[in-house]
């Protein structure tokens, strides 16, 4: 009993820790002048999110987050920044000035308040089934049939097979597009 309580306390602590770090890193990300620094802060946000995914029992997604987002996409970003030699802080990056920041923050807060009010008013309380704790405990007690990946893989390759196949076409199109857009015009006259 005690161990259980300790466990949930530790869980909450971890959750808030990673959450707050994510928020702080995000704020740092949007305020950095240097693109490289901004990218590094964003990487930090993503790591934090990966940790949260684990805590939310989405281990596979957490792994994907680290591998695909931080490992691939962000690397591409950094690569492009360095390719274009934009690594130094740019004055132009913040051309809006102080009032722009204040106004944007205000707008953002309004939006956040609205979203929160919406959530409070309608959904979340009602969305949570009364037996959530019992269900979660039962789920934790029974070992998953397909391991951690099984529950994700099953719908992906059954219900959403068509969409899955279409994403491959999308990726192919993206590759072709990137190559076409990115290559130098050799036939330019």
């Amino acid at each position, binding site marked *: 009993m005690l161990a259980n309580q300790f466990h949930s306390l530790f869980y909450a602590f971890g959750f808030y820790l990673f959450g707050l770090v994510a928020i702080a890193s995000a704020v740092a990300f949007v305020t950095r002048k240097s693109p490289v620094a901004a990218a590094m802060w964003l990487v930090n946000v993503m790591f934090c999110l990966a940790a949260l995914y684990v805590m*939310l029992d989405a281990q596979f997604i957490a792994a994907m987050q680290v591998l695909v*987002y931080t490992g691939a996409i962000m690397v591409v970003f950094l690569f492009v920044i360095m390719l274009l030699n934009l690594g130094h802080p740019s004055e132009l990056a913040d051309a809006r000035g102080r009032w722009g920041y204040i106004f944007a923050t205000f707008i953002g807060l309004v939006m956040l308040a609205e979203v929160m009010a919406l959530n409070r008013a309608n959904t979340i309380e009602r969305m949570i089934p009364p037996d959530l704790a019992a269900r979660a405990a039962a789920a934790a007690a029974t070992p998953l049939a397909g391991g951690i990946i099984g529950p994700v893989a099953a719908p992906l390759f059954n219900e959403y097979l068509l969409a899955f196949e279409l994403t491959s076409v999308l990726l192919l199109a*993206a590759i072709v*597009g990137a190559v076409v*857009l990115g290559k130098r015009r050799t036939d330019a006259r």
Partner: protein
Amino acid sequence: MLVEALALSAVLFTIGVVGVLTRRNAIILFMCIELMLNAVNLSFVALSTLYGATGQVFVVFTMTVAAAEAAVGLAIIIAIFRHTRSVNLQNINLLKG
């Protein structure tokens, strides 16, 4: 932890929006969009504890689309940079009506 996760998702999304509104560097703008996508992913994952793994499947799709979008978007930025020697969006107003 569900409510907290959704709240965090909203906060991160808002930060991404503020970033889009304030920054002029095209690459940073892109990264703000990635941040918003991540925020949405978080709410998908959080809600998948309620509604089963379908939400996580959507996260996989989102990642795929984000990767494709980053590839094409960055290619466009490179093309623009070649043209204008700048990634400042203020200098790019070909769509002016």
